[in-house]
């Protein structure tokens, strides 16, 4: 049944793929650097086209800037590990409370019940949540791509085994299996949690990549590569995957937003990040009863989660539009 969702009948006629595979994958990073020679018609590589389309998507561009600001502030303000940040207050120290701890100039996010600076606490939670989200995004992308590519390229029994394995993970509700694994990994800190969450969120990407690889492996350039005796490994890494990069990048972005919601939900339920570490979800769990008396303790972490997830989703949408030339947003 997934074959229907993933395969794209008739789609092959439209996609202006560069048949020399492998050159276009790096184009995204190099986009814009190659200036056109004077006197020639302006022509763009696939990567440059994608970059142009992406930067014309106003929502995605705004989201990228906002997310950048959030990340920079979260990591520079209180510093990372031994490196100190520019924010003068520490999240571990209890300061004298001003009034009931409502936000003031000295404490922009207010103070918690014990007088701790809430800005520093929220920044620390944001750091941990972002680290986990990106680590989960990377791990699940790698696992999903490898499984999807192997299943799609080799077919046969390998595909059957890998896809049934994917089905096994899909049939268990994500939150349930993540909760069980999170409980097991909770003691080993945020990296352990990120690792196990990455191990359960790859399923949708594996299916998408498999679908994409299934159609790519029948293309002429793959046949040509096989005809000259290229090894299977080289075909997958140099010819097939670079052409599936759009699906992978979009899915990786969206898996980051899934991860941040998953991690905060688990931490809220008590199966995720454990003390002394903190995350935005633990903060909400800790202060949810304070809503009527100290609403700022409740608003800030939630708004942070919302902002990060929203930005990531918009970036993902922008990337999807950019990689899919059939959905032209601007009329040009």
């Amino acid at each position, binding site marked *: *049944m*997934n074959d*229907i*969702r993933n395969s794209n009948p008739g789609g092959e006629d439209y996609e202006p793929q560069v048949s020399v595979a492998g050159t276009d994958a790096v184009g995204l990073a190099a986009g814009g650097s190659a200036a056109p020679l004077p006197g020639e018609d302006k022509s763009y590589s696939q990567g440059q086209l994608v970059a142009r389309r992406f930067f014309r998507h106003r929502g995605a561009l705004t989201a990228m800037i906002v997310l950048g600001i959030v990340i920079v502030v979260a990591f520079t303000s209180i510093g990372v590990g031994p490196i100190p940040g520019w924010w003068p207050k520490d999240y571990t120290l209890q300061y004298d409370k001003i009034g009931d701890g409502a936000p003031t100039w000295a404490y922009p996010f207010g103070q918690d019940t014990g007088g701790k600076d809430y800005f520093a606490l929220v920044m620390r939670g944001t750091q941990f949540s972002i680290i986990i989200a990106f680590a989960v995004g990377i791990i699940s992308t790698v696992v999903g791509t490898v499984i999807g590519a192997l299943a799609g390229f080799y077919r046969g029994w390998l595909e059957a085994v890998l896809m*049934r*394995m994917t*089905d*096994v*993970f*899909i*049939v*268990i*509700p*994500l*939150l*349930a*299996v993540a*909760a*069980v*694994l999170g*409980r*097991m990994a909770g003691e080993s800190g945020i990296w352990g949690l990120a690792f196990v969450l990455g191990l359960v969120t790859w399923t949708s990407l594996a299916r998408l990549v498999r679908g994409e690889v299934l159609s790519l492996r029948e293309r002429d350039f793959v046949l040509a590569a096989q005809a000259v005796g290229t090894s299977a490994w080289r075909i997958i890494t140099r010819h097939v995957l670079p052409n599936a990069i759009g699906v992978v990048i979009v899915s990786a972005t969206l898996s980051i*937003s899934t991860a941040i*919601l998953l991690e*905060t*939900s688990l931490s*809220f*339920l*008590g*199966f995720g990040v454990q003390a002394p570490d903190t995350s935005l*979800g633990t903060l*909400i*769990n800790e202060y*949810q009863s304070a*809503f*009527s008396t100290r609403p700022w303790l*409740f608003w800030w*972490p*939630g708004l942070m*989660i*919302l902002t990060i*997830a*929203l930005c*990531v*989703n*918009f970036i993902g*949408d922008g990337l999807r539009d950019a990689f899919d030339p*059939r*959905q032209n*947003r601007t009329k040009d």
Partner: protein
Amino acid sequence: MLKFILRRIGASALVLLGASLLMFFLTINSGDPLKDLRESNDPNREQLMAERSERLRLDDSPWERYWDWLSGVGGCFTGNCDLGVTINGIDVLGLTQQAASSTLRLITLSTLLAIVVGVALGILTAIRQYSGFDYTVTFGAFLFFSLPVFWAATLLKEFAAIQYNNWIAVGQYAPWTIVLVAALAGFLLQAVLGGSTRRRLATAAGVFAFVAVMLFVFNALDWWRNPMFGIGGVLLVSAAAGVLVTALTAGLRNRRVLYAALTTAVVGVIAYWFTAPLLVDEPTWLLLIGLFVVAVVVSVAIGAAWGGYARKQAMLVTGITGVITSFVVVADILIAHWSDFLGLKSRPISTIGSQTPNFDGEFWERVLDMGTQILLPTILPTLVSVATHSRYTRSSMLETLNQDYVRTARSKGLSEREVIVKHAFRNALIPITTIVAFDFAALIGGAIITEEVFGWTGMGALFQDGLNAVDPAPVMAFFLVTGIAAVLMNLLADIAYAALDPRIRR
């Protein structure tokens, strides 16, 4: 077709088996079930530990424990289910039945609402691509995707329940609220309906005037505390629903179908008139279901009698109209009981629990109580699913609207309605079915959070308590219910595919 379904069931059963094995081993290795006893200072600690080890069979090998659980579940096929006991020795089967009924109630309601609203929004946004309406819905969808449910739930408790309960004690809108609501309604409707600037302005002004006048009239009648609908209202709404369904499926030019739909609405209202004494006082669920079945059968019969050349279409339209009319009738009775209900429960919308403790009312008040309890936990999962459904429907519709067969349909002069409903939407339905099936499973998983926040004792609580105590039986019961629900939904989706796309019937 049968072979296809059987093969799917077989594959699903194997997948479920593998998943249960994985889940069981993960659960029993997720912690130490004796931890709280090891840390206690109870004098008979050793004895308690030995007892618990005995009950959870900690001394046996994991494989034996799994086999034991599996054979207990296997007993369900022969009529003697055994899902094991919890860490405190309570029978899990009874717990599961209770929990599953309350969770499935929640999930089913969310799913149904989300499908209707989400698919409708998706179609509208696809038709009005890149309009202000499209951008608004897109932004809203992204917002709800990104919403941490546990956080938003607290906001909902505060703003939807507590503030509403304060407000309903008075039940009057302030004039500026009315102006604001009316302006918002006017703005939204003009964005959806579109057209030239002049037409948009006219739409907005008309809607604004209508909503404002209605709200002032409601205020004057103290409607929010003593709501009334009346048999005239039922007739109006059902007839309008009949016209809408006709317009969407057969087209208003098909008079036979239109008249059939209107007849259904009228017959429904007359039937309501005659059965009202039975319905209003103290009906039973059995009576309601029986009447509903009769209503649907009669409606389809009306369609068959009126239909003529368009018999099949007329039967479909009258059937749907009959269902809608029945719901409108129930809504009317419920609305009529609202003021009595307020008398029994002065703060109607609850934030905790699946039913009010010690609530003592008649049948319809009990139904209203259940409704107000289920309201908040339903809203959030519904909104998240609406976001998913509307995005997928939109992209799927855009995909089909760009196809050659749609262009052909337009160029041969079909009306826009026929192009969208018959050519584009039917083909777009295939991927939508997949998403609905997947989403159902995701919703059950998400119920863990919803139930925790709203204090429901459902499958989520069963799972969470079980996992906290490293107690496999309740966790596996949770898995069993969600897994089977997911497999069943996927099976339904497969059957729906085969109905939608004949190429799949392999």
